[in-house]
């Protein structure tokens, strides 16, 4: 048993944290989010040069990381600065590409910051159900033509390449019959680009006979998507942990400075104990993220149970931390100008990615029933 980071990861963490401290304050972050792409292409290129994009991929596909602990280190640091560059979309689509094999050239260009990836899986009526796919793919000679609507595609506006799930057999909610395709951006796609409430790029994507290359085996794509989501959930949970850490630090610091009734409000026990509870619960989240990232390579059932447990806890504790951070700040926590509200927004909106607390609690129970 060992909970420490090895030297490589400690260096990765230090490099990234130093870079973000120097280049990514809240004002700059808002500026990046306002750029046309929804992030800063310039920063993306710098992240690439620092090796941070490569840290999302294993050595077998040309990266220099890719393990759970790498994801935890990178995304926790990203969460502390609310980084808007598309790491999460890259990880999601990249995981499918890496696991299906034969995509080394594209991954190489992604790590170099030249190609941009997105996973187009969710649909207007799928909510959080992994199996719910209506988009269809029809074979056309050697290639496939894909048609359908994909909803809230993270990084969907800026992507050059999409991993698209489509039904190749079975009914809408069947686990079998979902296949993953690689689709290069083309005129056969309509992309409606927007920014999420917490400032991240996403898009509604409509495909009309878009040309796709088959990834991995036909009809077996659901397992690839599930693994991509497992990585995405672990990563975004670490990101939430980073954001919660900063939200709590800001809150504690604020109670030191802010005076009412002639004393710093941090002297009031009613606030102290709630902040102590925030720390206690965040320690639970840290352990849960470790359980998730540490089991990404485990058997499916154990992996998915830990992932759902983690996402449930992140959602529950996240809401507590975000709401308390705003409440304890009082009116200041409500302002755009002060940063804590932006952390709170991201923490809360993460609950809407890949299934919320209710979804994952139910899933955790279902996965445990046949253990």
């Amino acid at each position, binding site marked *: 048993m060992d909970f420490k980071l090895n030297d490589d990861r400690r260096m990765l963490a230090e490099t990234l944290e130093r870079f973000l401290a120097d280049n990514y304050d809240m004002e700059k972050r808002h500026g990046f989010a306002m750029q046309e792409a929804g992030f800063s292409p310039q920063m993306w290129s710098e992240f690439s040069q620092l090796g941070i994009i490569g840290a999302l991929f294993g050595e077998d596909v040309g990266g220099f990381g890719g393990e759970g602990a790498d994801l935890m280190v990178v995304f926790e640091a990203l969460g502390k600065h609310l980084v808007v560059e598309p790491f999460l979309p890259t990880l999601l689509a990249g995981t499918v590409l890496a696991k299906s094999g034969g995509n080394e050239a594209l991954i190489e260009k992604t790590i170099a910051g030249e190609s941009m990836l997105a996973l187009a899986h969710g649909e207007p009526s799928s909510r959080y159900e992994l199996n719910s796919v209506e988009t269809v793919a029809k074979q056309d000679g050697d290639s496939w033509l894909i048609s359908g609507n994909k909803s809230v595609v993270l990084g969907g506006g800026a992507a050059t390449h999409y991993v698209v799930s489509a039904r190749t057999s079975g009914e809408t909610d069947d686990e079998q019959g979902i296949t993953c395709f690689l689709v290069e951006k083309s005129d056969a796609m309509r992309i409606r680009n927007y920014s999420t409430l917490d400032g991240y790029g996403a898009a509604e994507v409509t495909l009309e006979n878009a040309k796709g290359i088959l990834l991995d085996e036909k009809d077996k794509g659901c397992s690839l998507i599930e693994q991509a989501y497992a990585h995405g959930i672990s990563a975004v949970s670490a990101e939430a942990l980073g954001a919660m850490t900063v939200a709590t630090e800001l809150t504690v610091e604020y109670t030191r400075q802010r005076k009412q009734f002639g004393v710093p409000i941090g002297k009031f026990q009613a606030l102290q104990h709630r*902040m*102590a509870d925030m720390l206690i619960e965040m*320690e*639970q989240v840290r*352990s849960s993220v470790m359980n998730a990232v540490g089991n990404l390579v485990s058997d499916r059932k154990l992996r998915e149970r830990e992932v759902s447990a983690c996402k449930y806890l992140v959602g529950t504790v996240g809401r507590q931390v975000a709401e308390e951070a705003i409440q304890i700040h009082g009116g200041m926590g409500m302002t755009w100008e002060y940063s804590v509200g932006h952390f709170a927004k991201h923490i809360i909106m993460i609950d809407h990615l890949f299934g919320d607390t209710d979804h994952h609690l139910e899933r955790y129970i279902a996965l445990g029933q046949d253990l």
Partner: protein
Amino acid sequence: MDLAFSDEEVRFRNEVAAFLKENLSSRLSQKVNIGKRLTKDDMVEWHSVLNDKGWLAVNWPKEHGGTGWTAVQKHIFDEECWAAGAPRTVPFGLNMLAPVLMKFGSEEQKAHYLPRILDGTDWWCQGYSEPGAGSDLASLRTSAVREGDHYIVNGQKTWTTLGQFADWIFCLVRTSTEGKRQEGISFLLIDMNTPGVTVRPIILIDGEHEVNEIFFDNVKVPVGNLVGEENKGWTYAKYLLTHERTGTANIGNSNAALEKLKRIASEQKKSGKPLSQDPYFAARMAKVEIDLNALKTTNLRILVEADSGAAAGPESSMLKVKGTIIRQELNDLARRALGPFALPFSSEAMEEGYNEEPIGPDYANAVAAKYFNNRKMSIYAGSNEIQREIITKTKLGL
């Protein structure tokens, strides 16, 4: 990062499990599992089984007859003991007094008292709390006035767990009223058979006699029974509070309680189906299981760090708060799972020889009583509010 136990640790766990299978009598484990009342003899018997194996003093170094185990090994031992339904060891002599004696006691005290704790000659109890000194322990008033070769002790201690069985009590007493309150406290060992010592039971809400009041009326205590220096007792007591981290999170206890809860919930029916399949009840069970699994990892993180030499910090406060919340939630769920059969209660049915037909399932009798009994967990050993104070001071710096 590696979440798995090492091969050695797995071997160790198997060794412990095998020992328990061989040496824990089914009489004892059945009493524990079904919630029967344990007698002094039961506890003495289990101590002696462990002592014969050399596994009684898990927290002691080898030189004093302890196991010398790592923090992780102690945790594994604790988990396996709870899983097997072993009685818990009585911590007052073993885990509370002994570390203080080893660190601050004289050579004579160590040589005299430590072996007697191991072989069961002395049963110890703890004399800290007083009617006017609970969370604010430093306000204690029980006085010890030096007269020649003796201290004359007057005052009252309370909440003395299992003091009715005790031969000795280790006490915090006031030896000075000068200066800071904390600087006038001494650590004194008192023979319970000394004239002037009176024990009165306090019956708790579950009807059980677990704790006591102890009165001291001009009790003569030889000065040789002072541990360390006069007026330094507060330092020793604080050392004691931060010394022991293994059991703080109640992991083994909660593991066993969760297993028991799952069994009850699968046997109890709601609308013809096991209660465990009721979505609302299943959700409550899953929530506490998720919390417990995260706490297990937190606990191991802290234990691994302790094994690498890190000093105890406010982490034990975090473990205490979360660990007791989880344990109490499990008590609440077990009580609810029984439905109406949580209501019947017979004190006699908690006795070993009780032969009458149980009302409801045989494990039901003590469940609601245990729920009430375990309300103590968030109160004792520094209430959860005091733990949050510690976190506020040390981690938040407020």
